[in-house]
């Protein structure tokens, strides 16, 4: 539902931009539309492939299997296990919260839950290939390594504060 609302707002905004701009520059219409259609095909193929791989992964990564695996770890090892599993997990984070509540009920540490959630939203193991192709290797490597370090710091801070 929220995606639909955001989509509508973005679409309305885009159409307004097109109308305002093209009133003055009619000759460019074709060129812009061709570029847009090109983008749509290209992006759709890439994004659909990612959705497909998320769909395949979700079949194997159930709440119990992920939770059960993570519960074997705690402390620093827990943080790293959280990062490893969290970066593979993709899709809406809402599906991550039930896993967290399962973890909490079974006595997982705060740092493990933090690192798992943070890695889920901050590192996309699968989308890295896309990031690399759009922004280059340097951007991708630096950003993701920094994210990795930040997740460790965030998890330690969370453990200390809460």
């Amino acid at each position, binding site marked *: 539902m929220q995606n639909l609302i955001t989509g509508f707002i973005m679409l309305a905004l885009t159409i307004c931009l097109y109308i305002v701009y093209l009133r003055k520059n009619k000759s460019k219409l074709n060129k812009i539309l061709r570029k847009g259609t090109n983008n749509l095909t290209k992006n*759709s193929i890439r994004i659909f492939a990612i959705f*497909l791989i998320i*769909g395949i992964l979700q079949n194997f990564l159930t709440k119990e299997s992920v939770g059960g695996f993570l519960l074997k770890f705690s402390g620093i090892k827990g943080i790293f296990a959280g990062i490893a599993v969290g970066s593979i997990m993709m899709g809406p984070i809402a599906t991550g*919260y039930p896993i967290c509540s399962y973890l909490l009920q079974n006595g997982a540490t705060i740092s493990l839950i933090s690192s798992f959630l943070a890695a889920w939203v901050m590192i996309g193991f699968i989308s890295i290939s896309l990031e690399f192709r759009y922004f280059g290797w*340097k951007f991708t490597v630096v950003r993701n390594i920094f994210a990795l370090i930040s997740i460790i710091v965030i998890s330690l801070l969370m453990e200390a504060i809460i």
Partner: protein
Amino acid sequence: MKKIFEEYMVEIIILVLAIILIFFNSTKLSLALKYALTMYFNLFLIILSVAFLSGFISEAIPPNLIAKILGKENGFKGILIGAIFGTFMIGPTYVFYALFKSLIDKGAGKNVIATTIGAWAIKVQWIPFAIAILGWKFVFIFNLLIFLYAIASGYVIGLSTK
């Protein structure tokens, strides 16, 4: 043909994996396909707007305009705009990569884009749900730390892409 292969290498690998999966477990693949299609249609309006918005940006917007607002030289202001934008936007980040790419091509700073991607990890729309499961203290501090990480991430990328 070679060009197509180079451009869509990752997607082709995913396709091959999916075909292999048919032989092992076709129910799981059909579930995955169903998931991918649902996600795609769910986000279609956003995907459509992103494609035509990036087409518009790359063909119609003068470079100095983007550079002035989101350029690297705009310093903290640009990063703050990125952080706020990223915090409140919803949908998967990688759907927006094409848009970010066209902004970078028009002079937006990579630091601003890194902050935007970083702040995207704050999932505003799921916060009420997260509080119900993890408690407000956890959610508040966790998201505050992610916001700080996003801003720091912009500076790290800024330094590395000098």
